[in-house]
């Protein structure tokens, strides 16, 4: 165990990414204990103040403290990302195991997944949100529906490859039950792939939420999220550029750190096989 941990730490991408991500989490956790969080307190006398000692990220057009909004909104964005990651892991893995192992359902499931993937993700997500009502759970659900087929496609290709392995053949020949075979012998083999894929998916989900809230459909004001703060900032670009940079850089750094972690994980967790897998997944 310590061997693999050492290999992770030795990997430059993983190390850099983890440091940035932990830093962001640390700031977001500690900040509420140091500065009083007032994301929704309107103070008109503080209208569009530049960053200063009192309001380190400045204030917005309602005089609300931007630092509080970015921290509180950041938790909203991260939680949506986390929910999407968990949701796609569960559904994606189950569907991929079934499709990859049982040839009869494979065609039906994969056809359906292909069609779902032909619908532009963002438009599908906002249409689903319109139907499911505008709140953060709807955003998570919509993104889970959009991203599950993408997870299925990648994980399934590994299940297909593992199914042909000699050890699986051996287990089957001594009469191991199919359910046990899937859970005990095939699932552990796809876990590295899932870990790598879901790290990237966490990043995509944060970008997705930001885009949806940016166009005014996801998380609704006055509740902040990184996307909807940027949406408010859009029209005030000239007067208050700080409103754009605080949430924008937060999204970028978070996504960047997750991408680095994902790259590192991919390099450490058996690079050769994963590379082959990506080639399979593309076809």
């Amino acid at each position, binding site marked *: 165990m310590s061997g693999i941990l050492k290999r992770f730490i030795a990997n430059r991408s993983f190390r850099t990414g983890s440091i940035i991500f932990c830093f962001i989490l640390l700031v977001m956790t500690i900040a509420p204990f140091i500065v009083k969080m007032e994301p929704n307190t309107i103070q008109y006398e503080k209208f569009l103040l530049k960053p200063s000692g009192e309001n380190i990220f400045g204030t917005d057009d309602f005089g609300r403290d931007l630092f509080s909004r970015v921290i509180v909104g950041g938790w909203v964005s991260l939680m949506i990302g986390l929910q999407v990651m968990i949701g796609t892991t569960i559904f994606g893995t189950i569907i991929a195991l079934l499709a990859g192992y049982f040839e009869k359902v494979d065609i039906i499931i994969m*056809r*359906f997944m*292909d*069609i*779902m993937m*032909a*619908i*532009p*993700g*963002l*438009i*599908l997500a*906002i*249409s*689903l*949100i*319109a*139907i499911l009502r505008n709140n953060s759970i709807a955003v998570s659900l919509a993104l889970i529906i959009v991203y599950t087929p993408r997870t299925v496609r990648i994980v399934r290709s590994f299940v297909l490859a593992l199914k042909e392995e000699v050890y699986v053949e051996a287990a089957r020949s001594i009469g191991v039950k199919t359910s046990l075979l899937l859970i005990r012998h095939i699932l552990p083999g796809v876990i590295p792939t899932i870990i790598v894929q879901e790290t990237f998916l966490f*990043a995509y989900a944060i*970008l997705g939420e*930001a*885009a949806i809230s*940016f*166009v*005014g*459909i996801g998380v609704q004001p006055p509740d902040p999220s990184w996307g909807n703060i*940027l949406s408010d*900032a*859009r029209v005030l*670009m*000239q007067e208050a*550029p700080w409103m*754009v940079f605080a949430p*924008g850089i937060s*999204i*970028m750094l978070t*996504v*960047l750190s997750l*991408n*680095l972690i994902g790259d590192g994980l991919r390099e450490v967790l058996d690079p050769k096989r994963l590379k082959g897998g990506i080639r399979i997944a*593309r*076809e």
Partner: protein
Amino acid sequence: MLKYIIKRILILIPTWIILGLIVFFIINLAPGDPTAMLIGTESVGNIEYIRESLGLDKSISERLILWMQGLLRGDLGDSFFLGRSVKDAIWERLPVTMSLAVFGLFFAVSIGIPFGIIAAIKPNGLRDILVMGISLIGVSIPEFFLGLILIFIFSLGLHIFPSGGYKPLFEGFYQWFRHMVLPSFSIGFIWAAYVARLMRSSMLEVLNQEFIVTARAKGQTEFIIVMKHALRNAILPIVTASGIIFALTLNGAFITEYLFRLPGAGSLIIAAVKHRDYPIVQGGLIVFSTTILLINLIVDILYVFIDPRIKYGEKS
């Protein structure tokens, strides 16, 4: 090969019908009554009348049949709010979205491929680290944040490009072009970063193969090796991915349209979602998904010509 192409085209028909069904069910499982939204607090009698005129009094199965019949005729129904047909509304705005996506794809490929090659020539060299570093930022930045930065620099700061709005092409190429540069670049840059990474890894893989070693042993210059021998093979994954990249630039086009206030189909659909103008949303989903299915078809067919190694037999 011809058999494969015909089969590939024929598969599109059932796929498209199922797509139509999926889109219908996504929209029509919606709770809430759009008629109530449409007329607000007016009398009940009026609600009944409007519901009838919009066809919402029919049962879901009747509506499904009407939708599928319309779809096969190319009729997508009428908008609740715009007082015109969905097809016209989308068709009129489609050129803006498409040109954004095509421009974005152009930027993505024309920036991404050369930089990916430069990075792959000397892995872990200075240029590689630089290109990979910038591309990492590219894959991590949301397109609308990049767009806002570009507006900040090029329109509010330097006054070179407008911060938004649109001029139709027939009113003059130059004005049209000026309005399209920033939006399409903010989409293109992000996918250029992705293309550069893909190109680099694919090029590295090819450069390690034996035929390249042979070419080197024969004393061929590095330039010829990369451009003549390696490029043709290394570009295949980009061709395969170009369908996906186009779909993703299309996705990006919807957001940049909103950001730059361009009158495209994306901003139409976003507005329709906000007003619950379901026919427009339904039509938009169909139009763009069909576009992506067609692009994928073209990519698959192109692939047959580009990569003769692949044998297209019974297995698909």
